[in-house]
């Protein structure tokens, strides 16, 4: 009931926003900026100035495209898709993603050497800033945003195999960077008592 009410209210706000009502546009921005800006921040990585510039472009694009919003999906889902597309386009323009295909092809099977032994990340966002742009994009899209490898391949112009390769490599590096947060110490102890039984995860 509350959701229906919210959706109805939001659709009224969206209609007013399409009419150019500044208060309605600002209301949409205020409601969704924390999430949309976070998507941009995660995909861009460590440079806050670049992220802020891209986030501005994203919002302008969202509002320009507003008359084409049909209400088939929630506004947040629709805006999220624009945010991802626009951010990836912007990263391509700044050449941050330009070499992704090459990056994928040249990857060896091993985890790349860890040059950040002294770096201790406090969050996934912070740790992911140490990934290559391509690996970060794939990890964020797959594990955080819930995209499939097929969708990622389409978005980034790579193969699904390349997407998987980047993802597994990203996870391997993040495991090291976030070891202090995600390390599991008692798996072996549990398993020793139940030999030949797969541990419960």
């Amino acid at each position, binding site marked *: 009931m509350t959701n229906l009410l919210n959706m109805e209210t939001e659709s009224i706000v969206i209609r007013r926003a399409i009419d150019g009502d500044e208060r309605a546009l600002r209301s949409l921005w205020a409601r969704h900026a*924390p999430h949309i800006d976070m998507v941009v921040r995660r995909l861009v990585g460590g440079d806050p100035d670049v992220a802020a510039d891209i986030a501005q472009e994203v919002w302008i694009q969202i509002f320009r495209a507003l008359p084409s919003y049909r209400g088939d999906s929630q506004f947040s889902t629709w805006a999220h898709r624009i945010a991802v597309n626009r951010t990836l386009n912007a990263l391509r323009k700044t050449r941050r993603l330009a070499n992704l295909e090459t990056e994928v092809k040249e990857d060896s099977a091993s985890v790349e050497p860890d040059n950040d032994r002294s770096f201790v990340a406090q969050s996934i966002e912070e740790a992911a800033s140490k990934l290559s742009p391509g690996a970060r994009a794939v990890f964020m899209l797959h594990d*955080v945003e819930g995209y499939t490898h097929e969708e990622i391949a389409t978005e980034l112009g790579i193969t699904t195999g390349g997407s998987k390769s980047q993802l597994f490599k990203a996870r391997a590096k993040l495991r090291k960077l976030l070891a202090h947060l*995600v390390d599991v110490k008692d798996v072996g102890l549990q398993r020793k008592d139940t030999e030949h039984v797969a541990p419960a995860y």
Partner: protein
Amino acid sequence: MWDYNARIQNMSHLPTERLAALVDEVPTSSELAHITGCDECARARAVFRALAEMAVTESTRIGSPLTRWETLAPVLVSDGVIDTGRGSPFRRHTVRRPWVQAAAALFLLAGGVAAGRYTAGASTFGSGKPTTIANTDSLRTFHSIDDARTVQAQSQLLYQTATAYLAQNDTGSLATDSPSAMRARLAALDRAREVMGKALNEAPYDPVINGYYLTTIGQREATIRQLNTVLPASMRSISY
């Protein structure tokens, strides 16, 4: 031929990236057998799963916005996304146009004056003297959108005024002298208002439909006032 299963069973550990893949892929039987017998690989697999759970949680995390409305708003104004009342390419087909509002306001003002004079028993458009209308330049060229819209609004007002004049003075085509004729006209205008109201709901910013709707409302109001002048006080309509 490389025997992956044999290698898995004999190797010390599964490759790290394979363990990372097992977050969302199903291990083969030999991989499962290895994990079952290897504390380190079992732990690594659990760590990757914990990492995946962190990632899911990350998707719901929100941070301070990167954007500021004070920075966005000027760009949206210059793009025409925010309506500043000067018209906008962004809303070319969908938005309320200022000149429609201006025309409506002028029309209602003129209608109110005309109806008031009519109700008071005065001639709305002069006492038998020819009505002077503004000299319009039919071949006029426009220098701006605002210029064109102003002339369009003036023309619309002129059209509405002429229509109202004909409704009052052209008695040959419309008998307005009997209450029954006025009631018939009022009933017809009510039906027209209903139809135009529906059309207005479907196309709220269409200038032609707006014009028809406003004309209908104005004529209905004038007819009610006219009817009230010929009916006894107890039978007068108070509803417009």
